């Protein structure tokens, strides 16, 4: 398979994740959609790494994975904290920081 296929698939997955963030309300599903977008980016990085024939792009993908894990941990911690304070788990209701 040529690199084009992988890159177009990655664009499709990224668009799907972005669509999910626009549609869904639950912060948990929005975190999952963020994962989708980060993974699409990873796929593009690995595909380009194969296209150039250089392993350094894969290191980049591993670092992206680490950052995604950190983001998930902090996000889920926030969700648990919101749940403990009996606030609604809905991004449209949690808009107090908007001023």
């Amino acid at each position, binding site marked *: *398979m*040529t*690199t*084009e*296929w*992988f*890159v*177009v*698939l990655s*664009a*499709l*997955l*990224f*668009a799907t*994740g*972005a*669509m*999910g963030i*626009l*549609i*869904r*309300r*639950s912060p*948990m*599903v929005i975190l*999952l959609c963020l*994962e*989708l977008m980060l*993974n699409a980016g*990873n*796929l593009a990085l*690995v595909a380009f*790494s*194969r*296209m*150039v*024939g250089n*392993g*350094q792009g*894969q*290191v980049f993908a*591993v*670092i992206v*994975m680490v*950052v995604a*894990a*950190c*983001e*998930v*941990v*902090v996000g*889920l*911690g926030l*969700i*648990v904290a919101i*749940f*403990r304070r009996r606030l609604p*788990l*809905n991004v*449209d209701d949690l808009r107090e920081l908007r001023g």
Partner: protein
Amino acid sequence: MEEVLFFVSALGALGGALGVIAMRNPFYSVLALIVHLFSLASLFLLLTSAFVAAAQVVVYAGAVMVLYVFVVAYVGGGGESAWEPIPGQRLLAPLLGIALFVELSIAVLSSSLLALGTDGPDVPAGFGDPAAIGRLLLEKFLVPFEAASILLLLAAVGAIVLASNRRENEEAR
């Protein structure tokens, strides 16, 4: 053979992604994401990056998804209200998503990267295996590697501070 594997994995990845945004229950969304991650791992294997594929399965499908399952079980999957703060949001969002996909595809396919239409150069046998990635991580990319470990530590501490039950502790004192 390679084409068949690519299309099966691509269908799995796309189906998983659509499942994440279509399922009403967050628990099923998490399960769909696990399908997506496994398909993506086989795509990484097709691109001869064995270490990234293994890390994808072990770290994502293994560790991160277990965390998700626990939090979903703790919080509970409440249904979402049909109320839309922006009128027509659910109609508009897919259109914007398709527009984003078309834009990205045009941007990539009309670029002047000559190697895009090729399979990439022939790589040596050890390309992308743990030894090669480990050598890169510990020699050339040592500073990003250490920065990533500090970031992981900070995130773990931050999550404990965020999710700890401070109010009850104060009452107990």
